[in-house]
């Protein structure tokens, strides 16, 4: 990344460019590097695909301007007068606002629990695989094999994993947690093994020289030095898994607030309840983002 920054600032007006000429009193920087050429071609290709996409996209005959106006109106309703229907959250019709809120919180808790379970399961597996995949701790063959398998696992979208496991385990928490753990393993294994690889080679060498075995090296040197970064990456994944759990509730029958969202949008067409659910999700997600940002600042000041 540093090479990119220096190249960028030079082109923009840092050092004097080598190939320039003066035309009508303006300095024209005309040096076209291969990187710039690639950049322009990529931009051109992306813009072409986008325009082509807009010309050919299927709108199913929807009246777009009218739909946009309708969407804005719905958003206004969602954020200004959200409310939940008691019976949709398993309460009797006569239940007051607060008990309904509590039962909605419980449903939200199911989503959080799904996210927690898959983060924990995935994290444990990722820890083991991360140790095996870190280049300084094993040989290249094991490392590459594991990374290859994980690349394949990551290429299948989470929702498909959940649905595949639902065939054998039934729609529900078991399939959801297994499916969600798969991507968690893929993400965290990479993060963990990179933080293991940051460990100073000298430390491992010193331990090895004093006769320490593999478990000693792991528990006395590798783990203590990367535990903070492991915890913060795990929390970041927990944050992601919350959004995934909402999606799995809506698309793969995993239950929780996502399922309620699916029902109110797909069956009850109740925009005020959609607003109620969306706001609840938003509050939790914002809270977690604040915590994750703090953790990131603390433990990975140079992370992306």
């Amino acid at each position, binding site marked *: 990344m540093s090479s990119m920054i220096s190249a*960028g600032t030079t082109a923009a007006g840092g050092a004097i460019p080598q190939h320039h000429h003066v035309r009508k009193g303006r300095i024209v920087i005309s040096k076209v590097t291969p990187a710039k050429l690639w950049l322009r071609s990529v931009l051109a290709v992306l813009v072409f695909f986008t325009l082509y996409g807009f010309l*050919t996209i299927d709108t199913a005959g929807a009246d777009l301007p009218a739909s946009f106006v309708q969407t804005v109106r719905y958003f206004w309703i969602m954020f200004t007068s959200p409310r939940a229907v008691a019976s949709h959250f398993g309460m009797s019709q006569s239940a007051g606002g607060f008990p309904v809120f509590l039962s909605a919180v419980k449903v939200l808790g199911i989503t959080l629990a799904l996210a927690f379970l898959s983060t924990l*399961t995935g994290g444990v597996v990722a820890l083991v695989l991360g140790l095996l995949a870190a280049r300084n701790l094993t040989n290249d063959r094991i490392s590459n094999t594991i990374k290859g398998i994980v690349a394949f696992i990551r290429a299948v979208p989470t929702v498909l994993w959940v649905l595949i496991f639902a065939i054998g385990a039934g729609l529900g928490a078991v399939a959801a947690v297994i499916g969600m753990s798969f991507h968690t393993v893929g993400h965290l294994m990479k993060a963990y093994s990179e933080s293991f690889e940051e460990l100073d080679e000298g430390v491992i060498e010193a331990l090895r020289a004093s006769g320490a075995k593999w478990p000693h090296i792991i528990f006395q040197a590798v783990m203590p030095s990367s535990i903070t970064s492991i915890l913060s990456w795990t929390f970041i994944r927990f944050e992601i898994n919350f959004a995934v759990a909402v999606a799995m509730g809506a698309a793969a029958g995993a239950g929780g607030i996502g399922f309620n969202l699916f029902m109110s949008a797909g069956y009850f067409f109740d925009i005020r309840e959609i607003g109620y659910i969306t706001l609840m999700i938003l509050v939790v997600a914002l809270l977690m983002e604040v915590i994750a940002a703090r953790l990131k600042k603390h433990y990975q000041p140079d992370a992306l």
Partner: protein
Amino acid sequence: MNLYSTSLPKETVWYFIRKRIGFFLVLSGFIIIAAGSSRLTGFSLIDAFQAIPRVVSWMFSNLIPDKRAFERLPRILEKLWDTILMSVMSSVTAAVFAFGFALLGSVTTKPNNFFAVFSRATASINRNIPVAAWAMIFLLTFGQSSFTGFLALFFASFGFLTRAFIETIDETSISSVEALRAVGAGYSQQVMQAVMPSAMPQMISWVLYMIEVNIRSATLVGLLTGSGIGFMFSIYYKSLQYKSASMVILTIVVVVLLIEYISNSVRRRIL
């Protein structure tokens, strides 16, 4: 290493014992939350362990495309193409808007604090509403179509890209913007001559990353909004035609890996 039989000083031994107690407290905390979560959701670790080998062996015998699946390949590829277009479109369109908002929100280029807070808050709300929720909201107004999927992906990408672009501009452009400001360049000159050239490679890299993410999300959005490759999967899955569904999965895997490969090699060349 047995701590108790060594001749270490007492304080050192206590230090290790305290550390172990702390470790076990944290561990038991996790276990208690996990047990509570399992109860709440009906998850069972034993069931999960039993399900994995059963499903994996089932996968190897049933998730193999048959002749019928190959006959359906042209139709699947057509939907896959729609999905790729949807991901590229939503990422690029979101990037255009995100660049505008990032200029307002970045410390380097913000016109004033009001716009900066407005831009960051908008992005944050957009990003924290999950893509599934966006899909369900637009499904109500735009109906079951690819355009609905595009909108859902657009709004989720917009929030993410705005934050990424703000960070990129702040990282790469401060010095060149300051230099231009010092020689009296106007706002548009600062943007065109300093921000654009220095931040562009990194921003394109983010757009490529967004396309990768959106290809995966598009499957989910497709399932929810009845469009693209997700809808194809859903049709075969619900009608128990798993061999055709496996064809859909295989094509998705190939496309995802291919796009990751392309974007990685492009990234190497532009950065």
